[in-house]
């Protein structure tokens, strides 16, 4: 009965989304209907949450009469992965998507009371249309609570690669980011219908953009971290089409964050900001299509039947097509906004936007070209890391090179020479450290050393901007401290995010260029050298987990002096239910570096006995920065979001204007 209540709740959510759309559309000039539309949005969210709770219940109690549970769970699975199984499948993840979609709609209804009534009604209406499309898709084509007349005794279990804590958390964060852009999309469509995009609109949109982008950053980072330690190949980004699918909305979201600041502060770039708002969610939907249509082969892809993929493509075409058609019609009528000189903060942000948009287009080309080529001519083309290294990397290098100038340029008309003067110490330090790396580490890796210089430049530039704001070293320290403590959280968030980007660049360049690796077939007692370590395979024993059997290696890493640095216990697991094997790597953190050890398959020795194991080991220098940097970026975004001016409900209560006036804005 509980499962059937969930099924009914799903259908109720569909009907309520339709009611939300209709009531809000007719409520633009009728407050009671608009309010009822908001009530329907809240109801749709609660109904979807009920269905989602029921699906989790079905997974927890292993109710295999639910087809989705039978296909993706097993009684031996640990509880965490039973719960995570709820979004580990195509149907369940679509339910999670709809949960966020309705949740964001309800959030606009509840938190958006400071918005103009007509705009609010229209935002809720557009969000209702999106909910309607996706929930209809779920109910009619991807029902996660579909029942089986003859349930199997046991479930088929979840792909073992997905049974991992990082991957349990990865989709909820990723989807909250993806779907968060739906609110921005709805704001953009509503503004186009209204025919008004101004500074106030940009301020209303910014917190939603910031929230979605920060959550997406966390989601992507968790995914990269999972790929790093679960797939056992030592890398963290493969330019896999599904990775790219999440990266495209991130790039567009980053551009949107910056262009929305220009629209808010100067009223400029309204059309471009609206365009990016539409594009961010369009890329999110494109990602959903790519992962679910079966057009991709990826460890991430649900790769289900193309029919459902076509339906998703139709939803994408209808929603984005209509939105961009509206944009084409209404954008010319939007006010051009404030003027600015070629050298100004606005220009710097425009340049940043152009490069980020070009980078997103490059990633899209690299992702879709093989699919299009195969579809049109049957030719199989592979686009991998070399393509992106030659196209994406130089673009981003330019964007990062000019990044520190932006915050130091004034609005309207900036002083490039003045900004350069404020950055000379940062530049000097960056160049010096890059040259030092070139001399000490490896003269043959000039580009990598330049990358390190770029990372230091970004960190130095962010610090220089902080110094400039607080007039450190120029004003009395009491003044400096007063300015420092008076800085709004938005400013701290921006600085932290830029430092995070520098940290990431340092980690990525260092790890990619100076990683050392070794692989050898070892018998017990056998040794292998990697980097400055000597690894000894001490033993390999059996181990048993809740739903897997494993061979667990015991590998000791010693330094040049023979001292034990760490003992790793990598595993090679067999999941009997599906007959799949996975590698659980052993990671020994060493400061910013990591020693990464993989136990491979059993092999025959010289005498033919199966008493050898393939051991692969990597020393990944500064790899912790690769994951720490994006987390700093996300933290920066969330700190900015905690800035009172960017909170969702500011101005709702009486007197909020006065309260808000007590906080200062960042000078962004």
């Amino acid at each position: 009965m509980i499962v059937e209540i969930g099924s009914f709740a799903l259908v109720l959510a569909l009907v309520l989304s339709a009611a939300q759309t209709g009531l809000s559309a007719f409520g633009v000039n009728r407050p009671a209907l608009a309010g009822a539309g908001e009530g329907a949005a809240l109801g749709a969210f609660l109904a979807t949450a009920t269905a989602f709770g029921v699906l989790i219940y079905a997974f927890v109690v292993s109710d295999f009469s639910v087809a989705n549970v039978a296909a993706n769970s097993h009684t031996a699975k640990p509880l965490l992965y039973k719960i995570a199984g709820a979004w580990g499948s195509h149907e369940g993840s679509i339910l999670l998507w709809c949960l966020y979609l309705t949740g964001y709609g309800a959030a606009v209804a509840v938190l958006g009371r400071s918005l103009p009534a007509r705009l609010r009604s229209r935002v809720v209406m557009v969000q209702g249309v999106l909910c309607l499309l996706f929930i209809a898709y779920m109910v009619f084509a991807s029902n996660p609570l579909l029942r089986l007349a003859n349930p199997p005794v046991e479930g088929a279990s979840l792909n073992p690669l997905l049974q991992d804590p990082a991957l349990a958390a990865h989709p909820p964060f990723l989807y909250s980011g993806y779907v968060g852009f739906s609110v921005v999309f709805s704001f953009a469509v509503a503004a186009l219908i209204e025919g008004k995009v101004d500074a106030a609109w940009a301020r209303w949109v910014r917190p939603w953009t910031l929230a979605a982008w920060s959550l997406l950053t966390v989601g992507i980072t968790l995914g990269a971290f999972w790929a790093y330690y679960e797939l056992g190949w030592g890398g963290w980004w493969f330019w896999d089409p599904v990775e790219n699918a999440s990266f495209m909305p991130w790039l567009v979201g980053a551009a949107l964050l910056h262009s929305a600041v220009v629209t808010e502060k100067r009223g400029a770039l309204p059309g471009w900001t609206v365009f990016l708002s539409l594009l961010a969610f369009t890329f999110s939907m494109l990602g959903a299509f790519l992962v679910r249509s079966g057009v991709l082969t990826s460890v991430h892809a649900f790769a289900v039947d193309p029919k459902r993929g076509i339906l998703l493509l139709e939803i994408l075409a209808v929603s984005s097509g209509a939105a961009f058609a509206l944009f084409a019609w209404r954008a010319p009528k939007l006010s051009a906004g404030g003027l600015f000189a070629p050298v100004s903060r606005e220009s710097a942000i425009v340049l940043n936007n152009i490069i980020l948009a070009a980078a997103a287009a490059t990633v899209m080309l690299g992702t879709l070209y093989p699919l299009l080529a195969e579809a049109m001519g049957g030719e199989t083309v592979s686009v991998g890391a070399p393509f992106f290294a030659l196209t994406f990397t130089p673009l981003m290098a330019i964007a990062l090179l000019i990044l520190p100038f932006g915050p130091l340029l004034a609005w309207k008309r900036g002083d490039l020479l003045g900004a350069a003067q404020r950055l000379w110490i940062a530049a000097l330090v960056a160049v010096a450290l890059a040259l030092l790396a070139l001399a000490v580490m490896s003269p043959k890796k000039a580009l990598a050393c330049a990358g390190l210089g770029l990372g230091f430049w970004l960190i130095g530039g962010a610090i220089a901007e902080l110094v400039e704001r607080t007039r450190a070293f120029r004003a009395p320290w009491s003044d400096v401290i007063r300015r420092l403590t008076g800085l709004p959280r938005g400013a701290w968030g921006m600085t932290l995010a830029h430092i995070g980007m520098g940290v990431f660049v340092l980690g990525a360049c260092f790890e990619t260029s100076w990683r050392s690796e070794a692989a050898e077939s070892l018998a017990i007692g056998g040794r292998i050298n990697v980097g400055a370590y000597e690894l000894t395979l001490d033993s390999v024993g059996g181990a048993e987990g809740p739903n897997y059997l494993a061979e667990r290696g015991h590998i000791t890493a010693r330094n040049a002096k023979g001292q034990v640095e760490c003992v790793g216990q990598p595993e090679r697991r067999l999941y009997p239910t599906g007959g799949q094997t996975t590698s659980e790597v052993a990671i020994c953190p060493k400061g910013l570096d990591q020693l990464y050890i993989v136990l491979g398959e059993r092999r025959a020795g010289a005498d033919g006995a199966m008493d050898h194991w393939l051991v692969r080991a990597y020393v990944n220098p500064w790899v912790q920065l690769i994951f720490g940097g994006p987390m700093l970026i996300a933290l920066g975004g969330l700190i900015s979001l905690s800035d009172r001016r960017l909170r969702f409900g500011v101005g709702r209560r009486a007197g909020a204007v006065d309260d808000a006036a007590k906080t200062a804005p960042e000078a962004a």
Partner: protein
Amino acid sequence: MIIFWIAAALLSAGAGALMLQGAVRRGPALAEDPAVSVHRRQLAEIDQLAERGLLSETDHRAARAEAARRMLDAAEAAHPGHHVESSGRLALLIVAAAAPLIAAGLYITVAGAPGTPDQPFMARVAAWKTGGADLGWPERVAVATVDSQRNPKDPALLKQLAATQLFADDPVSAEATAQRALALWPKDPEVFTLLAASLTRQAGQVTPQAASALEQAQRLAEALPPGDPTRERIDGQIRAVASMGAEGQQEPQAQPDAGQVTPARIRQMVEGLAARLKANPDDPKGWVMLVKAYSVMGETASRDAALAEARKRYAGDKAMLDQLEQAKDVSR
């Protein structure tokens, strides 16, 4: 089913109440156009920034002038909020009433099976345990698994689980279960033969590890008192495993699924035992083993026939009758 419809009605009523509450709560337009409020706040923020020394005098003047101009523009264009055309209350009531009905209709036609009960795994296992007869191997494995999970320190339950897993063509799990049983009680020769059988099934031949397990089984069996029928049984099992390995070795390429022969081999063993009992029926342990084997294999008709014959033969032997009863229920 009535409870389901009550729950559905409550959900629908809640949704309707939210819509009506939203309609009632949606108050009049804010006193000031929200866009003007935003610009007013921006002005205040610019002043605050200048006060904290974070904005130069020139920048402050320029920013303030622009923000003030935008505020004036916004005030001029200020929209009064909703231009109330009509309340739309009738439409609202219709929607609030129709939504649950449409949902119920859609649910019945598209998504729902209102009479279908939930089937949590533990409830199904409980039903299988009480239902008894004619269970398939997967159900038996499920029951045995749950039993062993409830008493994880009981090697007998693990032994039973390993045997069931072996019958259910899951030698990998059977091996792991046998290992767990041996970790608890490493003196049961039958568990060693189960381990050897599961290893042999996986490899298609008697591996060194399987041979070692068979040796252990042999050694433990030899320690049993002479005449103990367990010894004979263990011997039979060892021969069966050895024969299974030999078959696997003969056709390793032609029969990649050589492991699947094993149930047939085990069946052959059981049939051999039945034939032996027919020729020499005075073997109480043999009868117990036969009943147990049929019970584990799920062949209830054969089990009941063997049981009836054994009961008749040992009608006055209460201890024997008890053993037969236990053997009959071994699969549960």
